[in-house]
């Protein structure tokens, strides 16, 4: 299945992009997607347990993904 990963701020900087199409096996979790991203060049600069969101909602690492989901890796926020 295909899941889109979105990267922001310093995380986009370390991976050199803001979005990645990931091809993941059925039943993959947000944690699996994160491992996939951390295996990319520069990906080891992502923290082991960053904030994650699936389809615009904060999500646990164990969340099971579905084809077409949008997974966001969220750096520490700094609004205000």
């Amino acid at each position, binding site marked *: 299945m295909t899941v889109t990963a979105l990267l922001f701020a310093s995380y986009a900087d370390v991976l050199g992009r803001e979005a990645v199409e990931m091809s993941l096996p059925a039943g993959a979790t947000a944690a699996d997607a994160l491992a996939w991203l951390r295996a990319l060049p520069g990906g080891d600069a992502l923290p082991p347990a960053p*904030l994650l969101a699936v389809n615009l909602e904060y999500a646990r690492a164990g969340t099971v993904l579905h084809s077409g989901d949008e997974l966001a890796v*969220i750096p520490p926020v*700094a*609004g*205000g």
Partner: protein
Amino acid sequence: MRAAIVHGAIDVAALLAEVASASHGATVLFIGTVRDVNDERAVTGIDYTAYVPMAEREMQRILREAAERFDTDAAVVEHRTGHLELGDASVAIAVAHARRAQAYAASRYILEALKQRVPIWKREAYADGTREWVAQQGAMTAHQD
């Protein structure tokens, strides 16, 4: 109740007009602006970026939470993204309420929740020419399992 990420200057007069009503005697407006110093470093500007659809959804949720806690029916929040100069408003929150205590409390609640969990990021530019992504103290930083 309206929450938006905006790309140009925030029009605070429009926000005040949006919450105004003869049934509310107390209006509290908070404006966050770009300061010239942060952590003792001279700042020359800030670039804000956001995960826009999630940020708007999360800000809407915060307004609903404030409505439940403080019985607020008139609240609006706008956060600006892009390049901001010193003194520019990055965020404005307007709350009107029949009671002043609730107007203040709701305003503060919305601000603190926004800083803690709305997916917005800032990169500060310093007088020495460097730039750095800055985290909000107290913001959520790891997922809860």
